[in-house]
C-alpha cells in the first residue's frame, strides 16, 4: 500500500508538471483559456506539495 501511494504521488507529479506547462502555454497562446476558470496558483501549490511528498 505504501509503495502504491508513493508510485501514485510520483505519477501525479509527472501529470501535474505537464498540466502546469500546458496550462501556462495555453494561457500564453489564448489568454483567459484557463485563468477564466481556474487559478493556476492552486495547481502550483498542489504540484509543490506533491513534489515534497515524493522527495520525503
Amino acid at each position, binding site marked *: 500500500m505504501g509503495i*502504491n501511494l508513493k*508510485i*501514485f504521488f510520483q*505519477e*501525479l507529479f509527472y*501529470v501535474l508538471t*505537464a*498540466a502546469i506547462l*500546458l496550462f501556462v502555454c*495555453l494561457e500564453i497562446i*489564448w*489568454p*483567459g*483559456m*484557463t*485563468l*477564466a*476558470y481556474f487559478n493556476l496558483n492552486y495547481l502550483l501549490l498542489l504540484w509543490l506539495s506533491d513534489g515534497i511528498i515524493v522527495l520525503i
Partner: protein
Amino acid sequence: MDKNILKIRIILWLILAIIIGWFSYFKIVPTGKISYAIAANRPNYFIGKLTPEDRVTAGQAGVTVKGDPVYFSVRPPRRFTRAKVTVKFKNTTDSPVVELGLLNDKMAWNYELKPLQNKIIDQLSLVWPTVSGAAGARLIEREKKYNTVEQFLNSLPPTSEIALYDYILKTEFKLADYKPRPESRVIDYNWRGAYQFYTYIKNEALAYIFDFADLNLNQDSDPVRIKVYSQDGLIYEKRIADDDASERQVSLKITDLPEGAYRVSFIANDDIITKKIISPQSQFALINKVWLADGNAKNLVLYTNSREVSAQTINPASLSEVKVGGRAINLNETHKQFSILTGNRPETIALAKDDIIISGDGVFALAADSLVDPRLPNVDKNLEINQGKINYILTGYQGAKSADGWLSAAADFDLTKAYQENGKYQFLLSLPGLKAGEPAGGEAVIKEIKVELTGTSLAEKIKKYFEQPYGN
C-alpha cells in the same frame, strides 16, 4: 510494467486530457452559443464589476447605483456576433428611464442605447389605449383613434403631437422660410473634441470647411472623422489621419441632396480643437453638447431648446456663473455636473467664461433662428406630456418583466459594430438624472447580469471554409 502503475498513469493522464478538452470546449464554444450570468456584486472573468466606484455600492442584495452612468465590461472567449444582455434590477428612484448601452465608437463616445425600463410609458400604457404593431411596435394614444400602428403610420397626425421612444419614425422636416445664402459665413469659435450638429440645405450643396488644431496633450494618434447623415442614415464619410501637423483643414462638399436637415458628426478626441468652421449654410445647431474651448471671446451667448441644461468644467479657471434665462448655474466645482430646468424655449445661455461643457436634451445654436432640430420629442424625464400636447407615443419598448419584487429586462446588441479593447466590450447602464451625492427619491439596485452570446458555430465555420477555402 506493473499493471497498477499503468492504470494510475492512464487515469491521471486521462483526467488531464479531459480538463484540457473542457477548457478548449469553453474557449472554442463549438455550438456558437454561450451564456454567462453573475450576481452584480460578484463579478467574474467574463462580466466585470460595475464602475466607477464612487457611483456604486456593493451590498447583500446587489449593487446600488448612486450616479449615472455606470459601466461594466464583457469579455467573450472568442468572437461572437450578437449579445443579449438581461439585467435584473429594482428602480424606485425619481429617474423614470433605465437604459443599457454598448460602446460602438470610443472616440465619439457613442453608445448604442436600448431600453430596460421606462416608467412613463409603463404608466401611460395602463391608462391610455394601446395598439400593438409589427416588430414589437406599440402606439399609445391619448384618445382611441387608430386601430393599428400601420394605420397611424399611413396617416400621421401633426408631428408636434407625437413623442417617440426606442422607435425611428421618418418624418418630413422642412423650414418654411429658409432661403440659401449666396456667401459663406465663418463660425469663429473654438470647439473642443467631438461634436455633431444639424444643418439645413435647400437647392444648394452641403459644404463645410473645418480648420482644426492638434493640442498634442497626449501621445496617441489623433485622427479625425467626419460623417454626414440624412434621415435615411450615413451618406458621407471622410477620415483624416494624424500627420503630426499642429494645424489641419478638412473640407466637404456634397451636391444634389434633397432639401432637408442633415446631421454632421465631427469625431475627434479631446486633443483636437476646431478653430473655425466656414460654410454657406445658415443653420448650425449643435446636438446635445457644446464644449467651447479655451481661447474664445468672453461673454458668449448660446440659444437652446433643451428642457434641462447642464454645465460642467475640468478647468478651475472656468469656474463661474452660467446664466440660463433668468436663473443661474453656480459652477463652483470642477468635474461636477450642475443642472437647471429651462423656463422658456428657446432659452438663452450666457457664459462669462469659456472651457465649459454645456449639455442638454436639445440643440444649441449661436443664434435664436438657427435652432434647427428635426427630432421628435423623446419620452424621458424631460417630456411634458400635457403641456407639450403630446397625444401619441410610438415605441418599440416592451416593458420589463416583474418577478419576486425584481424587474427583469433584456436588450439585444450587434457585436460586429461594437468597439472592443483588450478583448472586452464596454457596456453602460444609464439612469438619466441620477446624481451621486444628491437625493434620488429611492434606490436603484442591480441584482444580476446575464449575457447570452451567439455567433458562428464550429460546424458553420468548417462548412464556410470548405465552401470558400480562400475567403473569396
